[in-house]
């Protein structure tokens, strides 16, 4: 069979196609069709010739096959040091082989490549920092995902995910109306405890535009309220956008570069329309990577920067605490041992390690670093989309072991995870391994510790006590 009805080279472009694919629970039919999906070798080779340029080809060619990258990969460590989990082996036997064979590969090869690209690599980029030649296997796997996506070999959930972005301009079925409704509803609710609190929408020329993760309005609307409370506390002039509010990109995990471009263009359009001085993104790692770090290149901005200064939530929070615009009540500081998860996406890959350390210095009395940490930290185990892929659930659960052991070694029972992916992974880790740990974003913790200025007090005190 050349192309399946569900599994094929076409991305999802309509709501109807999206619903049909969703109806195939667990992708049973989808994966069945994939076994028959044909590989258009000419198309594959022409794509490789066009997009696989000197950086990647040199990486593949000069690899000394020295295995110095082995220990650096969290998959290798938890899988009994299986030689097939060495980063160099994983990429050479997939992308490397695909190029050496000039695209003449069969269906089984492509399915194995898919299993490797999504089930054996979280694109955490750690191995690249351990390779003497500077060979970044994570970057190559991300590239390979793009090739596999274009050929139709992509995990079911991520085909859906990138389709969501194309259809709803969000990673979930949250329309603009749903979004604005949620904000109005949250404003009403929060106002009861915080008189005068506003969730401003589409205000032009505000100091700050706030963007977030569609999961927040969809599943955790209190997160939206918490962001509003903290802006309110800091006295920030801020707004959100009714269009272009969604910062995440499952399309990036899928390797659907066109959907990546479309998604980030929405956000940049909102920036151009509202002209804020500063854009702040929520406590999410991949959303930051997608919109701030990679996004400018997807839309072709030659300076590699978004249209306005765009920072991560932890950068804003560190500044507020430093300048005393949000003050922490010393009596409410975290007394118990607490540790911190460094997200690969904004720590190794965007240098923000100092911000989170600074925040910890204001809020924690017994902060314990994981080992290793900062740029050198291990992936949570669920990065790169792995958290969400049913087909690789076993691999993911095993991958959580590295983080589990790192957390246990700190002796802390509270883990601060300012990243949606890490937060999920640590939640699942607790479910899987029952360590008796708790995990949290920063927002609720800061609200529970903040000094509330007199003029904002009113009924706010009660709310804080509950939180």
């Amino acid at each position, binding site marked *: 069979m050349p192309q399946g009805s569900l599994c094929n080279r076409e991305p999802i472009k309509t709501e109807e196609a999206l619903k049909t694919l969703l109806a195939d629970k667990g992708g049973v039919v989808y994966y069945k069709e994939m076994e028959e999906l044909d590989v258009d070798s000419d198309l594959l080779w022409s794509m490789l010739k066009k*997009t696989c340029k000197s950086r990647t080809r040199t990486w593949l060619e000069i690899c*000394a096959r020295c295995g110095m990258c*082995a220990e*650096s990969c969290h998959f290798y460590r938890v899988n009994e040091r299986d030689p097939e989990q060495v980063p*160099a082996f994983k990429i050479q036997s997939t992308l490397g082989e695909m190029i050496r064979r000039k695209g003449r590969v069969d269906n089984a090869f492509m399915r194995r490549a898919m299993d490797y690209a999504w089930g054996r690599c979280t694109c955490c980029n750690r191995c690249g*920092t351990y390779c*003497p030649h*500077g060979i970044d296997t994570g970057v190559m796997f991300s590239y390979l995902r793009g090739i596999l996506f274009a050929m139709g070999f992509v995990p079911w959930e991520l085909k859906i995910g990138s389709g969501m972005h194309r259809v709803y301009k969000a990673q979930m079925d949250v329309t603009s109306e749903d979004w604005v409704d949620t904000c109005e509803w949250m404003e009403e609710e929060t106002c009861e405890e915080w008189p005068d609190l506003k969730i401003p929408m589409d205000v032009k020329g505000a100091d700050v535009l706030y963007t977030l993760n569609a999961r927040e309005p969809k599943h955790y609307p209190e997160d939206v309220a918490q962001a509003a409370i903290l802006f309110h506390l800091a006295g920030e002039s801020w707004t959100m956008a009714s269009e272009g509010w969604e910062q995440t990109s499952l399309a990036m995990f899928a390797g659907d570069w066109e959907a990546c471009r479309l998604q980030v263009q929405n956000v940049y359009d909102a920036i151009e329309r509202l002209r804020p001085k500063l854009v702040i993104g929520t406590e999410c790692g991949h959303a930051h990577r997608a919109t701030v770090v990679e996004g400018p290149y997807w839309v072709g901005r*030659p300076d590699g920067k978004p249209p306005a200064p765009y920072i991560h939530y932890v950068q804003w929070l560190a500044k507020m605490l430093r300048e005393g615009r949000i003050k922490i009540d010393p009596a409410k500081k975290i007394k118990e041992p607490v540790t911190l998860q460094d997200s690969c996406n904004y720590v190794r890959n965007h*240098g923000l390690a100092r911000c989170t350390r600074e925040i910890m210095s204001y809020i924690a009395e017994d902060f314990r670093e994981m080992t290793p940490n900062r740029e050198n930290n291990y992936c949570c185990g669920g990065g790169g989309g792995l958290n969400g892929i049913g087909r690789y659930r076993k691999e993911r659960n095993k991958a959580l072991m590295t983080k589990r052991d790192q957390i246990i070694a700190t002796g802390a029972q509270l883990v601060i995870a300012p990243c949606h992916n890490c937060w999920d992974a640590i939640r699942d880790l607790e479910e899987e391994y029952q360590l008796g740990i708790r995990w949290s974003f920063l927002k609720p913790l800061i609200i529970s510790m903040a000094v509330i200025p007199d003029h904002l007090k009113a009924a706010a005190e009660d709310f804080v006590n509950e939180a």
Partner: protein
Amino acid sequence: MRDLYMFLTGPGLIVALLVFFGGLAARALLYVQGLDWKLDRVAYIPHFKQGLKGAAQSIYRWLIPFGTHGWRKSPFFTVGFFAFHFGVIVLPLLVAGHAVIAENLLGFWLPHLPPAAADFFTLCAIGGAGLILARRIALPEVRHLSTWRDYAVLGLATLPLLSGFLAARHFPGYDYWLLLHMVSAEALLILAPFTKLSHIALFFMSRAQLGMDYSIKRGGDYRGTSFPW
């Protein structure tokens, strides 16, 4: 024999050197030409100066024994690597026998190492190659990664060291060791641009690229220092 010797120290050597330097220079140029700011997603040109700093650090740190997390994680390999590479880079430039040939070709005498020092570094380099080979065979993850090419390249790179040493120490069969030395060394020079030995130039390109990547795009604005390799 005499003719062969004349050829290998004359036109043969010149051709080998031309292929080596010309080939590597071409590889380096083609590398730069093949960089693509949109596909690589690194704005090389607009942030060139910032990028260069990152590139320099990324190269420099990796040239220091135990200078990076990576080197410190594999101490055994690091010793082998530096012993081997020091020899393979310094000896061809500073061995007395080479100075003789250089004088014949260029007409002037080049500085060179005392024979005892040359012997010492040669033996270190051969020892280093031995360590690298032993590790490649002993560690399952490295063995599994290896192809016949990896053994061949290591062998090809070690042959001139071994044969040069045996010739310089006047082991029995001197003429043959010397011949083997020249043939293997010239083969190495000629093959280098076309195998993974192209890393002699491309190591610098690849490291510079990743250094630029990290300092231009991946956090250089915020990290405060260069990437902590």
